């Protein structure tokens, strides 16, 4: 009896371990649905990746994502942990609406919003210098192509307790060799500014913020009249945004997801060169027919290397270089242009298999205007490389 029990025990332990390996090596999943991101997968080792340890880190990340039940386990642990935290500290949050309450990992709660810590200029300056230099290099090599820069201020650009701003946008603007009339910012000067235009639990702007951004960008581009919303809808499903997930509070820290409805003109859409029915699933969500879990990306559209919109209107061609903030407005912008190209440099090479060169891209696609749009993370990103 003892032998049988022990054999069963050892067999089960071995199976639990081996199942994780089999799944990772043979049947890896594509998406980490709990965290709304691509799941890590095993990669081929190279001498460099082995000796610098990145291969080993990749294996660990892949096994953590791919092991059977890892997603629910991760969510469950985080849910319990943040549930206890919320239950114990709810009084503290309510009593201190105008104080940063640290949640760890650079994330805090302020006035019922999950916010990132304010960035320091001295830490951001090298990245901004690099980003500005990349843009300036393109401008100087292609003076005939109009370049526009739109900077999105958010919680990282202001201390809500003191109202002090580190001046990240000003620092970038002063270093850009772009005409001043081609530069603008989505300004945040107080917590009230922020609270009215960003999600409580997500790092993106909400429907009001993104619509304001769309109108400002359109004005900057001299792109004509903006599309007007034809209605407003709040989805039934509670929304836990990226910051809620990051803080382990998915399902605990929730908010309403509200969006404007628009009547978009007919347009054909391609993702990484392949035609798709639509970008995002706004109508599907509004009709209650969405297939994925609710997230900013599943509603407005995800991060892809290249998305193109063609309205066949014969209007100007626009290239948008940005990050996920623009997901909420590229379809709107596309309504005002002939062809609109959206490139996310974080994924372009990986997803299209091509190296990105802005000069060549502009020539190849007959681009009339180039728009850079993003928050501090975009302008300081090491992926912001525009040429060889």
């Amino acid at each position, binding site marked *: 009896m003892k032998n049988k029990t022990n054999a069963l*025990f050892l067999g*089960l332990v071995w199976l639990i371990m081996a199942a994780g390996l089999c799944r990772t090596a043979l049947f890896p999943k594509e998406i980490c649905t709990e965290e709304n991101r691509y799941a890590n997968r095993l990669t081929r080792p190279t001498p460099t990746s082995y000796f610098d340890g990145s291969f080993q880190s990749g294996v660990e990340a892949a096994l953590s994502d791919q092991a059977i039940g890892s997603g629910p386990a991760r969510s469950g642990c985080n849910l319990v942990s943040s549930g206890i935290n919320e239950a114990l500290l709810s009084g503290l949050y309510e009593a201190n609406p105008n104080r940063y309450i640290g949640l760890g990992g650079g994330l805090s709660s302020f006035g019922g919003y999950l916010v990132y810590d304010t960035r320091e200029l001295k830490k951001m300056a090298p990245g901004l210098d690099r980003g500005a230099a990349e843009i300036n290099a393109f401008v100087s090599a292609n003076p005939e192509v109009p370049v526009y820069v739109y900077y999105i201020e958010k919680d990282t650009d202001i201390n809500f307790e003191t109202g002090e701003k580190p001046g990240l946008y000003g620092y970038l603007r002063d270093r850009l060799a772009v005409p001043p009339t081609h530069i603008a910012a989505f300004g945040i000067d107080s917590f009230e500014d922020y609270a009215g235009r960003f999600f409580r639990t997500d790092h993106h702007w909400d429907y009001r913020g993104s619509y304001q951004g769309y109108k400002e960008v359109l004005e900057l581009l001299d792109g004509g009249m903006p599309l007007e919303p034809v209605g407003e809808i709040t989805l039934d499903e509670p929304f836990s945004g990226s910051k809620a997930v990051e803080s382990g509070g998915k399902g605990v820290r929730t908010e309403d997801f509200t969006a404007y409805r628009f009547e978009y003109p007919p347009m054909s859409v391609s993702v990484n060169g392949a035609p798709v029915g639509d970008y995002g699933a706004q109508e599907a969500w509004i009709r209650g027919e969405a297939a994925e879990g609710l997230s900013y990306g599943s509603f407005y559209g995800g991060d892809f290397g290249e998305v193109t919109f063609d309205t066949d209107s014969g209007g100007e061609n626009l290239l948008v270089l940005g990050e996920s903030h623009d997901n909420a407005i590229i379809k709107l912008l596309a309504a005002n242009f002939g062809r609109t190209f959206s490139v996310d440099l974080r994924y372009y090479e990986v997803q299209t298999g091509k190296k990105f060169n802005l000069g060549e891209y502009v020539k190849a696609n007959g681009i009339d205007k180039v728009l850079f749009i993003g928050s501090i993370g975009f302008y300081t990103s090491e992926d912001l490389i525009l040429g060889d």
Partner: protein
Amino acid sequence: MLFSSMTFLMFFMPLCTGAYFLCKNRNWRNAVLLVFSLLFYAWGEPKSIALIVAAAFAAWLGGLCMVRFPRLKKPIFAATVGLLTANLVIFKYLNFMARTAESLTGLDFGLKEIALPIGISFYTFQILSYVIDLYRGEISLQKNPFTLLLYVSLFPQLIAGPIVRYKTVETELTVRSESLNGAAAGCRRFIVGLAKKVLIANRVALAAEIIYGSESGAYGTLMYWLASLAYTMQIYYDFSGYSDMAIGLGQIFGFHFPENFDYPYASASVTEFWRRWHISLSRWFRDYIYIPLGGSRTTRLKWARNILIVWGLTGLWHGADWNFIIWGLYFAALLMAEKLVYGGLLSRLPRAVGRVYAFFAVNLSWVIFNLTDLNRLWRALGMMFTYRRTDLAGAIMADTSIVNSLLWLIPALIFAFPVTRELKKRIRLPEAALNLGCLVLLLLSVAFIVSSSFNPFIYFRF
């Protein structure tokens, strides 16, 4: 590779145990263990694998020469020990010595930072035990270099102990019997160790990290004492958890490694603490340094010298920094005081008094041990001993994740004392219940591993 990583649990272990138990022949099984042990080390230390192989080969060659050339036994022994010690000194202490010399002389030696190979202190002491015991005639020569390399690189105890002496596993390297029940017991021991590390050590660690890492001044005296308590629990569950995992893994493959911990925080004196904490290291120092120096059977002055040497070296063994030397000498002072001043009184007092004293002394020692930056160390000690009020709400608001971490201190404190041992004596659970409990612990531990990025082992740096 960490035992508490997905790579170990879901990649290394199924392949290693699968290959090992598929082989029927002892030589093949040893070959599998050797290959996987080298892979285990090379996974985390690809550049240092050659060093461990070279050290094992040097010991094998030195041993062979000692036996073949008995007249030259002493110089060969000295050369081998010198070479192995030099290897340790260069990779572990040269940076420290250079830094110290630079700060004393104001000169810049331009020495490049030498990376510390993981586990070098552990495997060097194991290799030295082979060379010294062979010289003393306590063990036989190991003629097969691969068997010696297997002993040195055996992955369960390779990088964080227990320090398994060659004579402990001399026979088992070639003759041992694996059994189903032994493997199940080993597997349960491994899972308990994993749970200690993942469910407790990693949780309480966060409180110490947050408080010691804070520069905001939000934390007062109370929080600094809580941080010291959190680290005291972290280091115990971290290291004893690792030892449990190592002993359990050894058992799966038929080895019997020595126990390394015996509820050290239940000790009633510092002397007793060191008989129950990192037992394999204390015994190594006792047998290879303290007793050869004369031990306690000598004049009081020489005994004090021996204690200072042994504890200075114990401190240095743990790390090449001044705080470790201070930590070692702190224990030397306490051990001398117990022997010469108040040890007798302590033994006459109720055991609870001794326990409180020992726990306080040890808790304080971990503050010294933890903070390698001397400025931060003095600041922490200052905060602990000069009262500064803690604005509790402000302290929590600085980082609320500290609350969860501090909650874990409760089970940590309970299980650091022999509660489970007493329960085991009174309640005899059937094997099936133990297995079921361990399966639940395993699943919980895996869930915590995949949900957490904070997972370092403290003793790896030694």
